[in-house]
C-alpha cells in the first residue's frame, strides 16, 4: 500500500511496481534478480538472508493489519476453541503464523493443537465461506473481505497479542544497495512520506483505497475502504523504521518454531541507514482528490 505514491518521487518515477499473488513466487523473483526490491513478510526475509540470499530489510511496509478470522456463526469464540480445527496461514515463514503460535501459547495450548495449512492470501476468504477451513490468519484486506461478506468474524487482531506488530517489510537486493544507494533512499523516503500521508486522516485513506483498489490490487475500492478507513488504527503506516527488539522477537519465535535453523544477528539482515535517512521526511502534500484522479 505504501508504495503507491512513492512512485512519484522528487526525481520522477523511479520504480516499476509488479504484483504477485503469493510469497513463494515473489521470493523466487527476488532470488533470480527479476525484482530488485519487494515487500515480503519479515520471517521470510530473515530466513532468506540466513540461507545466504543477498537481500537486506531496509524499512517496514506497515504496522498491525493482520487478524485471525473465524466463521461468524461458527463454534469458535475463544482461542481455546481453535483446538483441533484447521487454520490457514499465508506461509510458515509469515508473521501471521507466529501470531497464531503466540496466541496459542498465551492460552496454554501447544502449537500442534491447531492444524495449520498454507494458502495464498486471495484464497482464504472464499475457503472460509465454504467451510473448507475453520479460520485464517491473514493481513488486510482479507479479514475485511470475510466481514463484509457476512461470513467472517475477527477472533483477535495481531496487536492483541503482539504490541507494535509488523508484517510486510521492504527488502532490497544487496547489489542494488551497494551500487545505487541513492535510488534505495528515494524509495524509502517515498514510502515514509506515503505512510505519513496515509495516517493524516480518513479522506486520505479513502482516496488511497480507491486508487490502490483500482490500479494496484485489482480489488473493489469498497473493500479497501472497509479495511483502511473505518478504523484508522486497523493498519498503521507510520513508525516504519526497523527496530532491533521487534526483529529479535521474530527471530526467536522462528528459532522456537523451527522455521529458522541458526541464530542470525540484526545487523546481518537489516540495513538501518535508509530508515535513518528518512527520519526527517514529511507527508506528501497531495490533496486526496488529486490522488484519486492521478
Amino acid at each position, binding site marked *: *500500500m505504501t*508504495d503507491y505514491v512513492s512512485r512519484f518521487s522528487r526525481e520522477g*518515477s*523511479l*520504480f*516499476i*511496481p*509488479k*504484483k*504477485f*499473488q*503469493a*510469497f513463494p513466487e*515473489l521470493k523466487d*523473483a*527476488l532470488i533470480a534478480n*527479476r*525484482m*530488485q*526490491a*519487494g*515487500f*515480503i513478510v519479515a520471517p521470510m526475509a530473515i530466513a532468506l538472508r540466513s540461507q545466504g540470499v543477498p537481500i537486506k530489510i531496509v524499512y517496514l*511496509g*506497515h504496522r498491525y*493489519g*493482520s487478524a485471525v478470522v473465524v466463521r461468524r456463526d461458527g463454534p469458535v469464540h475463544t482461542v481455546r476453541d481453535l483446538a483441533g480445527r484447521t487454520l490457514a496461514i*499465508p506461509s510458515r515463514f509469515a508473521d501471521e503464523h507466529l501470531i497464531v503460535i503466540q496466541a496459542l501459547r498465551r492460552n496454554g495450548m501447544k502449537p500442534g493443537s491447531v492444524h495449520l495449512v498454507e494458502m495464498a*492470501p*486471495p484464497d482464504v476468504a472464499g475457503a472460509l465461506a465454504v467451510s473448507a477451513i475453520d479460520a485464517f490468519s*491473514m*493481513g*488486510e*484486506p*482479507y479479514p475485511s473481505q470475510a466481514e463484509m461478506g457476512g461470513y467472517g468474524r475477527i477472533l483477535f487482531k495481531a496487536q492483541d497479542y503482539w504490541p507494535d506488530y509488523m*508484517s*510486510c517489510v521492504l527488502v532490497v537486493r544487496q547489489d*542494488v544497495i551497494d*551500487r*545505487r544507494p541513492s*535510488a*534505495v533512499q528515494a*524509495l524509502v523516503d517515498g514510502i515514509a512520506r506515503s505512510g505519513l500521508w496515509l495516517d493524516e486522516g480518513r479522506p486520505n485513506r479513502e482516496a488511497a483505497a480507491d486508487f490502490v483498489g483500482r490500479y*494496484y*490490487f*485489482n*480489488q473493489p475500492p469498497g473493500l479497501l475502504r472497509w*479495511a483502511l478507513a473505518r478504523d484508522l488504527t486497523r*493498519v498503521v503506516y507510520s513508525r516504519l523504521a526497523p527496530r532491533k527488539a521487534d526483529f529479535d522477537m521474530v527471530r526467536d519465535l522462528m528459532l522456537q518454531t523451527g522455521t529458522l535453523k541458526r541464530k542470525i544477528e540484526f545487523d546481518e539482515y537489516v540495513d538501518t541507514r535508509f530508515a535513518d535517512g528518512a527520519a526527517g521526511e514529511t507527508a506528501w502534500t497531495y490533496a486526496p482528490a488529486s490522488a484519486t484522479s492521478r
Partner: protein
Amino acid sequence: MATLGRTIGLLLTWTALITGLHLWLNVDWSILFNDRLPEGERKLNVAYIPVT
C-alpha cells in the same frame, strides 16, 4: 487449391491475431524495456502482493 490457400490465410491471420493479443495483454513491456537500459538509468522493479 483456392480453398486451401484461403484456409492457410485464415489460420495465419488467426495465429497473428492471437500472438498480437498475447503480446499486448500478457507481456510486461515496461519491465522488458527497463531491463535493457544501462544499470544507472534502470528503474527498480518493486514486487508486492495485494495485502495491506
